[in-house]
């Protein structure tokens, strides 16, 4: 600022007690909480590596029990009037809103994301998702899928660790609205908010077996995918696992929806409002530490403004605050796990080894826990691994282009097709770019916005099926 004023922030931590952490959490099967028959694990706080709670994990036998419960619950639940089903979902939405502070703190503790994000994005959107699909439950006849569209049956749902409660809401809300029953497996490293959601669901009075939540690792995911009593699989996660699931259901011919990885291009033209674009670039790659499938992980900037944009971006990154996820001033929290940190580290090292220039703002990372400084690579070529592979971390690869045609060619030069961004003041160019980009979501002069009314999902190897909006009903209807 040049005034000599100290504009640093005092710490403003949210109280950890709000999370109402309990020593142990159990699986939720057939309307009751009980210990799973799998190995109990400690879920860690990624910000310091300390255990938060013990979680009793499910075994394949628990999957069997959950399938029996969900099958039994399916008939009555699917025959319930849409209006009644909707009311249950409205109840869930309301309780999420009422317990939002608790859920936000718990989410930040278990995931490592800044409280600002869990408080302002994850939890409100989770509630909104239930609220949105609650209203569809008695209007399915009018949804454009023909008269009396029928539910699919029992849905097996496997979700990732990056938006634990929000992904649970994305999966459960439309499934229940359409009259399905569900078996949901939260991610191994982030089971806590899903298990509190199970409490909320029990409190809302849903019949036993309509929702079953089974914490566990990949073996439980495999048991769900392989189970003949499950009619539909919905998976959000990596493209590698998504392909394995698509193969696994090939023989049974089970229904499948996949929301997989991405390598989103965020394209900045020379006439873009640069300050806004900088904010969009930052949101695009550093929101949730870049652990977002639709992250704008490739910045494509028009050559004539590349130096200016990169210089402004660096200035902006100097102001980002990396640290305690529970601090309300924190912009960048912890990486979710040691495993993910190792992957980010290895890919960033590959970027350097392949000749790209690496830069991070000077920032002191906490000594314990899993941390990675925001990182920008310039001088990146399309052949570099950091331009091709999903890093799923706070690492931006900067490439340049001269013409719109070159931007389109580079943006689409990936097996993925989840998201893209366009920054320009020219309306006709926005619409032309939006048309040419082979991606399921295009953010123009904005990035990483989400809404329950807005369909989300990928082209190409980013998966198929849509979540959100009227389109999101289709994955859970027999149409």
């Amino acid at each position, binding site marked *: 600022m040049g005034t000599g004023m100290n504009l640093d922030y005092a710490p403003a931590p949210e109280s950890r007690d709000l999370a109402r952490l309990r020593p142990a959490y159990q699986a939720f099967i057939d309307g009751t909480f009980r210990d799973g028959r799998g190995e109990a694990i400690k879920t860690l706080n990624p910000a310091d590596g300390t255990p938060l709670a013990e979680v009793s994990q499910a075994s394949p036998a628990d999957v069997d029990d959950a399938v029996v419960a969900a099958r039994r619950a399916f008939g009555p639940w699917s025959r319930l009037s849409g209006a009644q089903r909707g009311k249950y979902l409205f109840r869930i939405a309301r309780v999420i809103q009422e317990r939002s502070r608790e859920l936000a703190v718990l989410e930040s503790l278990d995931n490592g994301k800044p409280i600002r994000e869990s408080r302002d994005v994850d939890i409100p959107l989770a509630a*909104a998702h239930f609220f949105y699909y609650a209203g569809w439950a008695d209007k399915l006849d009018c949804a*454009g899928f*023909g008269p009396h569209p029928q539910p699919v049956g029992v849905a097996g749902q496997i979700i990732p660790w990056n938006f634990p409660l929000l992904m649970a809401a994305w999966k459960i809300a439309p499934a229940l609205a359409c009259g399905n029953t569900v078996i949901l497996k939260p991610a191994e490293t982030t089971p806590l908010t899903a298990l509190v959601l199970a409490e909320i669901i029990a409190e809302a009075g849903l019949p036993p077996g309509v929702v079953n939540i089974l914490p566990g690792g990949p073996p439980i995911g495999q048991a769900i995918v392989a189970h003949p009593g499950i009619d539909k699989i919905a998976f959000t996660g990596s*493209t590698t696992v*998504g*392909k*394995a699931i*698509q*193969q696994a*259901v*090939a*023989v049974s*011919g089970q229904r499948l929806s*996949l929301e*997989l990885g991405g390598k989103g291009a965020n394209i900045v033209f020379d006439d873009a409002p640069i300050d806004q674009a900088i904010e969009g670039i930052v949101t695009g790659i550093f929101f949730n530490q870049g652990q977002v499938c639709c992250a704008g992980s490739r910045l494509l900037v028009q050559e004539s403004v590349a130096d200016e944009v990169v210089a402004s971006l660096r200035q902006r990154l100097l102001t980002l605050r990396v640290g305690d996820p529970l601090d309300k001033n924190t912009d960048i929290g912890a990486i979710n796990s040691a495993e993910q940190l190792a992957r980010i580290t290895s890919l960033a090292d590959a970027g350097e080894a392949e000749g790209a220039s690496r830069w991070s703002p000077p920032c002191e990372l906490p000594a314990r826990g899993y941390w990675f400084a925001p990182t920008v690579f310039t001088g990146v070529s399309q052949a570099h691994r950091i331009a091709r592979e999903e890093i799923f971390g706070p690492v931006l690869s900067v490439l340049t282009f001269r013409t719109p045609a070159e931007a389109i060619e580079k943006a689409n030069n990936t*097996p993925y097709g989840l998201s893209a961004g366009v920054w320009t003041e020219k309306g006709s160019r*926005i619409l032309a770019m*939006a048309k040419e980009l082979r*991606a*399921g*979501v*295009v*953010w*123009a*002069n*904005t990035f990483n*916005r989400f*809404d329950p*009314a*807005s*369909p*989300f*999902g990928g*082209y*190409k*190897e*980013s*998966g*198929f099926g*849509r979540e959100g*909006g*009227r*389109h999101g009903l289709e994955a859970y209807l027999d*149409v």
Partner: protein
Amino acid sequence: MSEPTPEQQDRLPVRKTYKLYVGGAFPRSESGRSYPVTSPSGVVLAHVAQASRKDVRDAVRAARAAFTGWAAATGYNRGQVLYRVAELLEGRRDQLAAEVRATEACSLSLARAQVDAAIDRWVYYAGWADKYDQVAGTTNPVSGAYFNFSVPEPTGVVAVIAPPRPSLLGIVNAMVPVITSGNTAVVLASQDHPLSAVSLSEALGPSDLPAGVVNILTGHTAELAPWLASHRDVNALDLAGLPEEDRASLRIAAADNVKRVYTGRPGSDNRHALSRLLAFVETKTVWHPTGF
């Protein structure tokens, strides 16, 4: 196809060579192979080209090359092109009916009914080309100062395995909804009853359909379908024409690049016809802030 009438007895009929249709041209199989197509009573009706893996590759390449232009054509334009095909097929009704009758050994009236239904299908989908967006697309009332809309877009290159029969209506039912939205197609014709499919391609050749939008291969389904299912530049598969027991291995191969796999639903009403079209579109959602 039909027996010569008495006054034609002195004229030897000119028989047709049944070739592939790839990139707007009519090549023989690069493998040099052909196979006999017989009537149900065993009479050899013709020798048709037996496509190979390389023909599959050429067809996919042609379909990919045609995709950008066809997908960018307006719905109105695509509709006109499809309608033009119906016009051209109308002039070949007798030939198509004779081929259907000969290979399927059905009555002439059934064969004619099949041909007429196939032609009418082109007219039906011609009308969808500039309308399905309005059925499948939405504007989305998001909570915030954004204009947000979703539009359907073609998936890309779609491989279609036509059902064994009805030999003409089956391939038309599967193929036309795929291209209506702007996809391009590589189609395996009915292995045992491919004659009318080849004659269909001969109507497509001089039509306004750009080269490569439709590519029709004849050959052995069990040999060719796996190459289509595993091809990295094919985006979607229509397996509705295959029995369920033949689908699993193709679905496994399809997972390698996350292909969309359609296996069809029973029924042939208009809803079903629309669902075939919508099975091969992607939904794109676009956000933009609003403000002064």
